[in-house]
Each structure stands twice: as structure tokens, then as C-alpha cells.
């Protein structure tokens, strides 16, 4: 596994919807297990400011956007499928 030094992960949520809370919980767990000490999570609540959805062209919530390292990657959903989340973040190679 190759990981760059700085990870900036932006999670788009809609207030405290069940999926938003699950996504944040899963993201924290995933980061602690795979990116300990080198990540930063930004939570963007689109219920408070829906216009921010435009920045990363968000359609569904929750959506995680890997801002750094580039290139940008987007993972839609509550991250409960750890395998898919790790592949999406490129922390793991896809198994065909």
C-alpha cells in the first residue's frame, strides 16, 4: 500500500441523517485503521449550505471526496462496504 503524507478527506453530509452519521463513523474508523496520524477530515453539512454541493458536484449524500492526495476521488454512500471504500480511496487494489 502506498499512501502520501497528507490526506484531506471531505465528507458531504445532510445534517444528522442516519446515513450521514454512519458514514462519518465508518470514515473515522477507516482512517484510524489505515491512515493513522496523517489525515484530516472536513465535514460539509449540505443542509446548512446546499450551494457547497457545486464545488465537488455532489448529487447524493453522503459522499466522501478525497481532496488530497490528488487526483480527486469520490465515494458515494455511507462507507459501510469497507472493501469498496478502501478501493475507492485507492488504499487497496480492486480484486476482480
Amino acid at each position, binding site marked *: 500500500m502506498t499512501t502520501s503524507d497528507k490526506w484531506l478527506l471531505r465528507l458531504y453530509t*445532510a*445534517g*444528522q*441523517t*442516519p*446515513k*450521514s452519521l454512519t458514514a462519518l463513523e465508518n470514515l473515522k474508523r477507516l482512517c484510524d485503521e489505515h491512515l493513522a496520524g496523517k489525515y484530516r477530515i472536513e465535514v460539509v453539512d*449540505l*443542509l446548512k449550505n*446546499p*450551494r457547497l*454541493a*457545486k464545488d465537488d458536484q*455532489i*448529487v*447524493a*449524500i*453522503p*459522499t466522501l471526496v478525497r481532496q488530497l492526495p490528488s487526483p480527486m476521488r*469520490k*465515494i*458515494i*454512500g*455511507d*462507507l*459501510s*462496504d469497507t472493501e*469498496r471504500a478502501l478501493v*475507492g480511496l485507492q488504499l487497496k487494489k480492486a480484486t476482480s
Partner: protein
Amino acid sequence: MTEPVIDLLEAEELRKAIIGGEVDAFVVGRDESNQKVLLLANAYQRYRQLVETMQQGAVTTSLEGGILYANRRFTELLRTPLTRLYTAPLQTHVSAADRPRLSAFLARGGRASLEIAFNSADGTRIPTRLSMAVYDGYASILVTDLRPLEWAGLAVDALDSIRSSVEKLNAELREPKARQALDNISEHINGLARLIDSLQESPGPAESKNG
């Protein structure tokens, strides 16, 4: 990867997330200015639970005052069932003198607050603070019952009054004449106590007859 390929992968990602039930809200609206978040039905449950169980009243009205929603606490405050609340505007629950003030408050829109008293169905006057936020042409109003504050204020007033009486009494007791008067009263009380004791020790009328 080219842009069309990335778009395709994203579309596939979205499809998988929707089918897997991993999302509960969508961003809708063609351009930035009218983008909104659309919550799926189950996503509302947490908010509903919070609003229904909180100790403040919550009511949603049109800008004319038509009641569209009220939480349990608000119906309790007005002692009026929800089905009856829907039939009349919010203004009917305040005094006639306050109705223009409430109407102006609702029509103003935006974010605002107002102190006004409601009249419950049993005639109780309920002083409240309304905090309003207008969204999409509807007013969401949080209703805080101010009676506990009034009661607390009355209790503080009563305590202040007692405190000043005690201070006054203390000051008077420092006077020699007052001290003498207090000593006299104490002597009388002690005398009365001795008399009661002796009466209890002596045989009663019935006992003396039979004895």
C-alpha cells in the same frame, strides 16, 4: 482516465450506492442558486423524534398564520388537540389586542423573535418567546414558555423581600430597647411553658373525682 470514463465510473458508483441503500439524501436543483437537499423519508425520523420530544413548542405556519404543523409540546401548551389547531390561524390563540402584532411578525419573514402571550383552551395565559425562521415561504417557529422564568423571578423577589425583612429585624434587635422587649417576651414564653408543664403533671378533673 478521460473525463467521460470518470463520469461513467461515478454514475456506476452512484447506482451501486442507491441500490445498496447507502444514501438518504440528494442534491436537487438545476443551478447553484436553487440547489436544495432532498431528504429521503427515513432521514426525517431523527428530526421528527427530536422535535416531537423536545420541551419547547414548535409550529410551522404560512406567513398569514395558517397552522400546518405543531409538535406535541405546542398542543400541550394550548391544551388543544392537533386536529383542532389546524382549523384556525395562530392569531386566534392570542388576545385580540395582540393579533395585529403577531400578524406583522409573521408577515415580516426572515429570522426574528417576539415575546407574546398565548391563551390556552382553559383560559391560562402563557407568556412565550417566539423564534421564527422563514424558509420556502413557511414560518418555522420555536415557542419557549416563559412561565418558569416568571416563576423564578417571583421566587427571587420573595427571597429579596425576606432577606430585607431579616436584615431590618437584625438591625432592630441591636437596639437595647428591642433586646429588652425580646428578653421580656422570652420570659413570658418560658413562664407559659412552665405553667403547661405543671398542668400536665397535676391530676386531671376526672382522675381527681375517681381518685
